[in-house]
């Protein structure tokens, strides 16, 4: 934080070195981000191209900009309602999983429960279950209870992989906290649950928010369960895209495919940028308190 400009020569040398290192790190991080973003930029630029320019040699960044890829497909494929479905399902399953998963993660990290190692291992290993193994029985059960094509069915189905995921990550974040934190709160008369929500949760806010973001993303892009468990009312964007992708074999659908791909990226990016502010705010508060 404090720059030591007027200090001894040795220290100054090190700080100049530090400044160079910092510059390299910033440059490196920008370069890495650009490399990783390149395919996305390519997708966006393709979505704005005329069909004849999509496959051009040498490749072109842009042709005459056209919105045709966005308008033509939109009218046929009910993209709007499906976007709403995707948002409902992703937020619903993300929030449900973060509450249930974080509580379980805390229990496994801190509370003396007999067999907690085994329970944790079982829950975690369940994330390795191939979704195919669950899709057929889920479909049958949903049909029996008249729950096919409902948002809640998909939300619960997504909990199968989100809860273990949240539980495991949050467990590691909780373990990184000093034990004295909630012990002192409980000595002051807070209940275990109270201490958890008022002390532990705020302290692990960065981990909690990044876990939530990933849960929402995982739910956002899930294809198989959505394909099997919905057909119209609750169908999500990946289902619509899968239908289009089948047509890309003929080579004509690249434009619309990249257009819808671009559109699905936007809400999550907006969300992530928005949450990023909170993430840093939470961190800053945590730092000043500590």
């Amino acid at each position, binding site marked *: 934080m404090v720059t030591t400009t007027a200090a001894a020569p040795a220290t100054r040398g090190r700080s100049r070195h530090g400044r160079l290192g*910092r510059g390299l790190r910033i440059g490196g*991080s*920008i370069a*890495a981000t650009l490399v990783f*973003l390149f*395919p*996305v930029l*390519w*997708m966006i630029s393709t979505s704005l191209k005329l069909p004849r320019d999509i*496959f051009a*040699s040498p*490749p072109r960044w842009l042709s005459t900009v056209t919105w045709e890829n966005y308008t033509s497909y939109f009218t046929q494929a009910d993209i709007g309602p499906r976007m709403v479905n995707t948002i409902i399902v992703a937020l619903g399953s993300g929030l449900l999983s973060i*509450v249930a998963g974080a*509580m*379980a993660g805390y*229990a*496994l990290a801190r509370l003396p429960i*007999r*067999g907690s190692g085994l329970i944790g291992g079982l829950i975690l*290993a*369940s*994330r390795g*279950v191939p979704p*195919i*193994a669950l899709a*057929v*029985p*889920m479909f*049958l*059960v949903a049909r029996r209870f008249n729950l096919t094509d409902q948002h809640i069915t998909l939300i619960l*189905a997504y*909990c199968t992989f989100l*809860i273990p995921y949240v539980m*495991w990550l949050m467990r*590691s*974040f909780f373990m*990184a906290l000093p034990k004295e934190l909630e012990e002192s709160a409980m000595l002051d008369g807070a*209940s275990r*649950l109270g201490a*958890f929500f008022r002390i532990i949760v705020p302290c692990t806010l*960065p*981990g909690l928010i990044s876990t939530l*973001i*990933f849960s929402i*993303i995982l739910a*956002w892009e899930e*294809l198989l369960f959505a394909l099997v468990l919905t057909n119209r009312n609750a169908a999500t964007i*990946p289902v619509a895209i899968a239908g289009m992708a089948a047509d890309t074999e003929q080579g004509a659908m*690249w434009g619309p*495919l*990249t257009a819808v*791909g671009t559109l*699905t*990226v936007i809400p*999550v*990016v907006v969300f*992530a940028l928005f949450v*990023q502010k909170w993430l*840093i705010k939470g961190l800053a508060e945590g*730092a000043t308190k500590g």
Partner: protein
Amino acid sequence: MSTKTETEAVGSAVAPPTAPADMSPRRRPLGDRLKDIGGRWLFLAPALIILVAVLAYPLFYTIQISFAELDLSTFTPAKNVGWLNYRTVLEDPGFLNSLKVTGVYLALALPLQMILGFGIAFLLNAEWRGRGVLRALFLIPMVVVPVVAGGVWKMLLDPMWGFVNYLLGLVGIDPINWLADPTLAMVSLVLIDTWRWTPFVVLIASAGIMSLPGDVFEAAKVDGAGWFATLRKVTLPLLAPVILAAFIVRWLGAVKMFDIALAATKGGPGQATDVVNLYIYEKAFRGLEFGTASSMATLVLAITMLLTFLFLRLNRFLEKRW
């Protein structure tokens, strides 16, 4: 002991075990102690109830189907065939090949993603104004729906029109048919998967790095520890739980990978990228062989459980050691 805990794990989602024998009685009233135990289980209850309902139940159903022949008109197990499905599966060269392919993919992709992910997280941790935005931008590859991601990479890797070959052409390398050569197809698959999932490791690593206590680093600096010594003696040990957790989550995600393979290579050329889940998927939903597909799923589950168990043991060992 082990049978006891097993029944607990399965049966006690709602009912907490009463009178635990190993709790040393500290002269507290029984009511208090029960309340305490109840309080502990309260934390686990929501997760366990949901998971038993939507995960354990379908899973047992899958295992049941794996021993049966499924009646396709009613989607119910028609008759019990014993271990027949399992024998069919174990004699199926396609299935054994898919296990091998999955192993190769995991061995290449996981270490690459972990190293890149933590490396980039350290880069992104340099303090400056843009880092929050960069972190958020870094997430974008993960957000691209797999089917689209596979398509975009197919375009980039196209032998005739693709941008990658165009770049290689600029430095005088002849066009490479990435997805048509068995070895290169696997390399491409690992490349695409790494592009998609490194951001995950980056974010988890960033969150871990950010929650490290700053005073320890101040102390290391005061003691005159260099950059590398700090990394090796302070940062890595403190980060160990997060690194291991990220690895295990990534491992469990990678084991299930199939959408990228489906979108980019469809398992080809030949069966060079036919990962096990893609193979099971094809068997179940194209071949409608639900019985054998369920046997494969059960076997994959068993292998995954075993390896995860080993990783967890290693994890606990390392957590204790550091």
